């Protein structure tokens, strides 16, 4: 059992992470914040999950102990079938010495699936907010490096990220689809990425503040995939369906799209 606290300094730290540019240091900052907002009672301080979450214990954590958490993540992902996702190779976890990258990967995997390992009390919503930043750190910084080094922790963290994204579908399908699009992008599955971006956009009302962001993600992805005609049709539809307050920015989008097409055509000639 863990209790979540949302004190003023933790909220300020969350705000700073959200409004600053994301660099490689995001991962360690998010892990520090996740640890800071949690507490447990004295009897649970020796529990497996608590030891794993604690940054000061992470270096001494044995692979054997970690396998219990990993097995639960592996069991969870058996229900979700995504192409190109390697299964968690529990036998190989922890086979290398504990580098910072591997420690970050194991801790992120545990934090992203925390609700499956223990009961979470009090400010669970705030935990979800900070976990979401952990998901971003995993996608942008930790997973690419793990994949490059062919680490077994790669599949563990990838599967934990998938569980986190799918776990959000019940209360926020648009955001869940958006996170899945990020995962498909990481996996190099451009077709599924586009489908997930479209699903996310279609489930978002024009009144939603993320509407134009999700719209831009769709048409820029279409252009990146050389689907110019579809991008143009999408932008024309967007111009018709968006709110009067969006019109000016939609026009900017149209201009930027055509600038890109012209530049891209010139580069290819």
């Amino acid at each position, binding site marked *: 059992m863990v209790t979540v606290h949302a004190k003023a300094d933790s909220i300020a730290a969350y705000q700073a992470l959200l409004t600053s540019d994301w660099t490689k240091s995001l991962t360690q900052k998010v892990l520090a914040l996740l640890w800071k907002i949690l507490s447990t009672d004295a009897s649970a301080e020796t529990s497996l999950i608590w030891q794993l979450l604690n940054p000061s214990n992470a270096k001494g954590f044995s692979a054997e102990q970690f396998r219990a958490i990993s097995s639960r993540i592996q069991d969870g992902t058996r229900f979700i079938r995504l192409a190109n996702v390697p299964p968690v190779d529990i036998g190989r976890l922890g086979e290398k010495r504990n580098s910072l990258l591997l420690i970050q990967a194991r801790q992120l995997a545990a934090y992203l699936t925390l609700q499956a390992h223990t009961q979470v009390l009090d400010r669970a919503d705030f935990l*979800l907010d900070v976990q979401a930043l952990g998901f971003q750190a995993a996608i*942008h910084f930790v997973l690419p490096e793990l994949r490059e080094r062919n680490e077994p922790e790669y599949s563990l963290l990838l599967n934990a990220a998938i569980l986190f994204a799918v776990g959000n579908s019940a209360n926020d399908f648009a955001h869940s689809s958006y996170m899945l699009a990020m995962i498909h992008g990481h996996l190099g599955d451009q077709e599924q990425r586009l489908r997930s971006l479209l699903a996310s956009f279609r489930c978002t009302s024009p009144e939603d503040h993320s509407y*134009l962001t999700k719209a*831009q993600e769709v048409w820029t992805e279409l*252009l990146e995939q050389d689907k110019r005609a579809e991008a143009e049709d999408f932008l024309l539809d967007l111009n018709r369906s968006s709110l009067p307050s969006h019109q000016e*920015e939609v026009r900017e989008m149209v201009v930027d799209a055509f600038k890109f097409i012209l530049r891209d055509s010139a580069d290819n000639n």
Partner: protein
Amino acid sequence: MTKLGGNDPSHDLSTKSKDKEEKKLRQEARRLLGRQHAKERGKKPNRANEISRQKSKRVHQGTD
């Protein structure tokens, strides 16, 4: 205290502040449009979306 978005409604940014921040990130992402900037460009809308996540529900409920 400045409020920011996400699942916890107690730290939500004002509608105006969020719109301004998200629009800035969208513009930056459009400036980076092109294959050579794909990795860096991807972070901008991801951050904009993270800022606005869940906020609209509060707008619809009339509590923002």
